[in-house]
């Protein structure tokens, strides 16, 4: 029974992959500049993030679970997870501006696009040659995304697009946008949407950065004025874009946060070290048993999320696309990050007022992390929308309409 029973052990091939990857990271990382360019140096961030992606590609570590045909490694989702785990342990750079290409748009293309579309984009995404952004939300279509109004009218073999998108991450430096547009205004709202590949260099696209509460411009507004895109850039059938978007969501919610969650585990370990340095009277913040236990309690939640990730990956290995497990993961991850932020403030006390390190205390990234945490329960479907999904699709409760 040992061979088939539920287990968390590396198979022989997984263990070999892990060892080889560890060896490679130990050699590759020292040669790579440790500091990523600052918040608003978008061109610098793009260069840094894509250089790392290219390094991964050349070493055979890009697109681990994608087929060799499109430039991937042709390995398993489990090896993908091992990659995330080892990369985080080694302190490798995060996906950064490659986020949408590698984690939402790319996987959607991989699952839904034509052979030509895959060949045109997937190898370039994996090499770090193409950066993507996401054009789903609109100023008046947020949680009610299917009410989106950006219009695409067919003109010969082109679509002419007019409208605007919002919360578009990395739009300033993106080459392509995965965009939802309305192709049939007369159909019911979920039935008249199409999923398009929009080149960001097309005439008529205007990108205006939005300043977030963190202080940088992670997101932009994108205005579209008679933007002409070939019909050949549509993924899936015309008016079948909502179904394609659901595939995107399953990746966006299901697997895209795993790397960030692993970083959060490191953040908790690091917060414990900071707490041991913060003085409280004659002792330290870590000597406060109540605070210390709350941090320990929080780490239980992250350990459980890591276990949940392994369950979700084991399920996805059988089914291909992550299921509603992603909503469960994201709800708990959001809540855990909010709690981590609150504990950060309690540990840092007055040092929590500065986004930069205070008197040699490595506190700045924790303060910034707390601000970032506030976006996690909003991005990729608010926690309220995720709860509706869980309640209606898993628990079978009646729709509230």
């Amino acid at each position, binding site marked *: *029974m040992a061979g*088939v*029973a*539920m*287990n*968390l*052990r*590396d*198979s022989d091939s*997984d263990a070999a992959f892990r060892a080889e990857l560890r060896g490679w990271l130990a050699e590759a990382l020292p040669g790579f500049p440790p500091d990523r360019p600052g918040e608003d140096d978008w061109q610098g961030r793009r260069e840094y993030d894509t250089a790392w992606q290219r390094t991964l590609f050349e070493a055979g570590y890009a697109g681990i679970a994608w087929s060799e045909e499109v430039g991937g490694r042709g390995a398993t989702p*489990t090896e993908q*997870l091992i990659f995330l785990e080892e990369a985080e342990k080694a302190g490798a750079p995060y996906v950064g501006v490659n986020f949408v290409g590698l984690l939402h748009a790319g996987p959607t293309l991989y699952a839904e696009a034509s052979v030509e579309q895959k060949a045109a984009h997937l190898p370039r995404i994996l090499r770090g040659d193409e950066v993507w952004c996401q054009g789903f939300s609109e100023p008046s279509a947020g949680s009610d995304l299917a009410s989106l109004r950006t219009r695409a009218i067919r003109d010969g073999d082109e679509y002419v697009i007019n409208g605007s998108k919002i919360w578009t991450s990395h739009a300033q430096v993106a080459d392509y946008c995965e965009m939802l547009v309305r192709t049939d205004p007369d159909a019911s709202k979920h039935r008249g949407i199409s999923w398009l590949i929009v080149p960001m260099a097309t005439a008529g696209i205007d990108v205006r950065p939005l300043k977030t509460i963190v202080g940088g411009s992670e997101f932009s507004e994108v205005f579209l004025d008679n933007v002409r895109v070939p019909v050949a850039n549509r993924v899936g059938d015309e008016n079948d874009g909502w179904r394609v978007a659901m595939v995107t969501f399953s990746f966006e919610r299901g697997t895209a946060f795993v790397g960030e969650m692993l970083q959060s585990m490191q953040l*908790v*370990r690091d917060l*414990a070290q900071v707490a041991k340095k913060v003085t409280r009277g004659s002792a330290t913040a870590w000597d406060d*048993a109540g605070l*210390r*236990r*709350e*941090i*320990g*309690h929080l*780490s*239980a*939640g992250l*350990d*459980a*999320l890591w*276990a*949940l990730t*392994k*369950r979700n*990956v*084991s*399920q996805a*290995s*059988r089914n291909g696309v992550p299921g509603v*497990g992603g909503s*469960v993961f994201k*709800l*708990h991850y959001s809540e855990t990050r909010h709690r981590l932020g609150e504990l950060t403030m309690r540990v840092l006390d007055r040092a929590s007022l500065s986004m930069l390190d205070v008197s040699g205390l490595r506190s700045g990234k924790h303060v910034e992390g707390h601000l970032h945490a506030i976006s996690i329960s909003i991005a990729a479907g608010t926690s*309220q929308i*995720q*709860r*509706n999904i*869980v*309640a*209606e699709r*898993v*628990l*079978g*409760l*009646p*729709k*509230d309409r």
Partner: protein
Amino acid sequence: MDFELSGDQVDLQEGMRKLCEGRFPMETVRELEASDGVDRALWSELVDAGVFTLRAPEADGGVGLGSAESVLVFEELGRACVPGPLVASEIAASNEVVGIVERARGPVVIEYWNVLDRLLVLESNGIAEVDPASVVAARSEHPVDPLTPIWIAERLPTGVQVGDGELASRVRLNGALLTAAIQLGLSEAVLDVAVAYAKERQQFDRPIGSFQAVKHMLADMLVRTEVARAAVYAAGVTIDDPSVGDVDRAVSAAKITAGDAAVKNGKAAIQVHGGMGFTWEVDAHLYLKRAWALDTAFGSPDFHSELLATRL
């Protein structure tokens, strides 16, 4: 890595669920209050099913399965809200009814004292066995959980040394694991009870489960349950195969998340039932009260949080 149940494990889980549904429907569970939580005939059915000897080697008359499997069995006992000193009896790998307590400087709470055949006392550096009849204990006439009757002993006899400190640590670890598995089962069962009621109960001419204020509570119950399930299963697998992680850390994370799920789901289920939820007649309080009884067994949330903090 394959963190999905195998076919054999699914069969084991389903078999245990059927046994519990047949022998321990909630009416029966409620009637067990009259026999202080343990009915010898029903107990021997659990014995015959191998519940208490699941992990004992086959050479010793056990079933020879692992902790991952014992977790599945105890999850089902929790789902059915089966009372009795289940965890202690499994750890003793005994067909008798066994209790385990921690020796303390102050008074000690002993669950199910009058039905115990044996009583083990965990100490800082070993385990003592005490004859339950030799303990002077006063019954609490009003235990919070009607199915977890308790006695208070001002002091425990010295007893006979039966294990060393290392064995005591293993008992605590396994006790926390199986307790967490029961808590997982409780949190699932009480979620099912609440969801069924939310679909059926009408107010404002609609099922209350259609209101977001209600359905979001139920969604949070599911999230807590699934997070706990991942942690509890991972802890069972890690005990069986310590090469995959830190056993103590995995068990503490399981005990914390499953305890949290059981207690918070219990309260949420009462809230979903409204005024009816506050009545003795609705089952929700029985799940919550069991969750409370287990929350401080084999390490409180504070104890396990402290352990995890030392690992950071």
